[in-house]
């Protein structure tokens, strides 16, 4: 079993309960630690547990209640975010925060306190969680909310599944005017142009995300395409020509080892840049195609071959963003084969959880194919991140050092204290938590 990047496999007992009674049986029969897993879209080692019991929650995916007056949806942890939107967007409601893929479970979204392309305006997923029913290693359920055991609630949001198993949760959906998004794109030739453009739009655009050509160097460093999105108002739906929903394709097999991936990506990046004319482009497309570009190509992690890939994502405070991003991009573009995909987004405010990733700043995500020297590259990226006070995203991480974790997540001691209270025996663990020594800070 491994994360989406498929770099650090480990062996665990896996069960996939179909009914709640089976979930309780799996907890009671667990050995060597316990961890819930959702869709397995964390890139690194966050949702795996060597020698322990991993509970795949994807079949406990039932909707329990929906109140159209408040928009609050109650559902089990295994429900996929894409399925929620598919069901509720036709009824005029949508999840306020979704990541680049719809294949993320509600439990996973809470555990990683995920963000989307609208962080400046909407914040993180955790802000819309009304309450959580958390299952402990003893099989008892705790009802957590900002009013009831706020400490445990704040530890569970962004807590990477270490506080227990989310059984069900209440999520506030928001009204959406239509299932379409009006998307504007601009081509930008270097990092400074990109950052200036982002600064100009971040307070007004609902959705914004920049695709960066991670292989570009020198004067082209940081060039890319800035994409802005707005929901199409209901009364304008008929006025735009709407692109047909993208057909989903799958990657049928792993690319062989000798495949010239970097050359292919370089070519793709060139074409991708050229696709957007100098004057920018405008189109209207189905909501899910804009929000979940990663879902257009199923199993795309196979493109990286058997060796897999890692993603390095960190958020840097606005003041230090320009030099920090430049340093990160320079470092990775000097390495081989470099970052085959780079995504830059802005974040508006801190998350609600003790270990929430979000904070105001610029977030850069780099997809890096795994090679023998990748650990050294990741260590260097971590050093750069630490130097500019940046924070690495645990949902993507597979290489952060314990010292790095402690420096980047200032509330780690408070978090460990909650773990000590909720789970004194330390049953909930993950490969990542063991690597980072999350529990060692317990009082």
């Amino acid at each position, binding site marked *: 079993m491994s994360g989406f990047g498929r770099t650090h496999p480990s062996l665990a007992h896996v*069960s996939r309960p179909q009914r709640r009674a*089976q979930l309780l049986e799996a907890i009671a029969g667990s050995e060597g630690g316990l961890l819930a897993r959702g869709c397995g879209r964390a890139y690194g080692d966050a949702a795996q547990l060597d020698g322990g019991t991993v509970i795949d929650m994807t079949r406990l995916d039932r909707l*329990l209640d929906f*109140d159209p007056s408040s928009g609050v949806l109650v559902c089990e942890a295994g429900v996929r975010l894409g399925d929620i939107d598919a069901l509720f967007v036709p009824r005029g409601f949508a999840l306020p925060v979704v990541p680049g893929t719809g294949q993320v479970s509600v439990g996973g979204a809470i555990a990683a306190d995920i963000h989307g392309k609208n962080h400046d305006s909407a914040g993180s997923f955790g802000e819309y969680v009304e309450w959580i029913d958390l299952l402990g290693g003893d099989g008892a359920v705790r009802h957590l909310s900002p009013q009831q055991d706020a400490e445990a609630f704040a530890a569970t949001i962004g807590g990477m599944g270490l506080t227990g198993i989310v059984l069900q949760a209440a999520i506030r959906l928001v009204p959406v005017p239509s299932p379409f998004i009006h998307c504007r794109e601009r081509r930008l030739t270097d990092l400074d142009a990109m950052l200036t453009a982002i600064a100009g739009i971040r307070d007004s655009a609902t959705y914004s995300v920049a695709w960066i050509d991670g292989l570009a160097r020198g004067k082209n460093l940081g060039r890319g395409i800035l994409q802005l999105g707005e929901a199409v108002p209901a009364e304008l739906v008929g006025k735009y020509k709407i692109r047909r929903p993208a057909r989903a394709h799958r990657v049928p097999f792993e690319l062989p080892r000798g495949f010239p991936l970097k050359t292919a990506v370089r070519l793709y990046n060139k074409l991708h840049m050229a696709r957007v004319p100098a004057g920018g482009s405008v189109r209207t497309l189905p909501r899910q195609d804009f929000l979940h570009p990663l879902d257009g190509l199923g199993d795309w992690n196979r493109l990286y071959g058997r060796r897999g890939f890692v993603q390095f994502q960190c958020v840097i405070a606005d003041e230090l963003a320009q030099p920090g991003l430049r340093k990160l991009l320079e470092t990775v573009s000097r390495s081989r084969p470099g970052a085959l995909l780079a995504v830059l987004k802005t974040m508006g405010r801190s998350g609600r959880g003790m270990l929430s990733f979000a904070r105001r700043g610029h977030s850069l995500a780099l997809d890096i194919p795994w090679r023998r020297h990748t650990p050294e590259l990741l260590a260097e990226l971590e050093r750069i991140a630490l130097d500019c006070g940046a924070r690495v995203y645990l949902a993507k991480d597979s290489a952060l050092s314990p010292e790095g974790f402690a420096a980047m997540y200032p509330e780690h001691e408070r978090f460990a204290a909650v773990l000590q209270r909720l789970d004194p025996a330390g049953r909930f663990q993950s490969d990542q938590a063991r690597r980072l020594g999350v529990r060692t800070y317990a009082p």
Partner: protein
Amino acid sequence: MSDEPSLVPADAPSEAPAAAPAAALDDAWVIFGASSGIARAFMRIAAQHGKPLVLAGRDVEDLAIDGRDLVLRGSPAVRTLTFDADAPASFAALTAMIDTALPQPFNVLLAFAVLPKPQDIVADPDLARRVVAINAGAPLALMQHLAPLLQRRGGGRLVVLGSVAGDRVRPGNPVYGASKMALHGFVQALAPGLARSGVGVTLVKPGPVDTPMTFGRATALRPASAEDCAAAIWRAAQKGRRVVYFPALLRWVMLAVRLLPDFMLRRLAK
């Protein structure tokens, strides 16, 4: 676990309209083995098409959760029903209850079976008898009860989950294959009589599907998704197909396997 069976409304979420039960249960689907992987995916499709549902299974507490889910997905009404394939004595009462609750023609999906590991059957030969009792004995008895009722209603459809393993029983898991073969034979013989009364019969023969039954097992083919399988069953039921393989390609594979002389199959099975 053979409590008095009871037909209870699944907890209605706040959005659910308070509908009149009799009218709401028109063209309902009665699902036996409603907690199974394929059944759950099938129920969701039926709910999306606005069909009422009766969920029959052992864990009614958990089925009530499915009931809330299905109402939110579009089903006008969902009931749960305690059903234990291991308690055939309760089948008559179950049938009587369905008779009262569903005055209109209705549809049935039989989706319960057990698939023990072959080595477990070797270790405990009595398990062989119990597997046949649940996979063949129970559905046969249930169909004996349900067939006259379906005929009286003069419509609806009976969908039975068989298996490609029952087309030609392989040495790998002989008891399971034999139980499914018995099921196939019975359904084939039952279908013409029901058809004369306007009741359609669909026999489904899936290959490996990613459900709790196959989770963590080594299978000959990569398991298909339960959602895809359920969608294929729904389409087949709508079209009135008599036999449906899933994936569809298996129809020709199994035809070849059935036609193969025994001595050749023996070589292949090695």
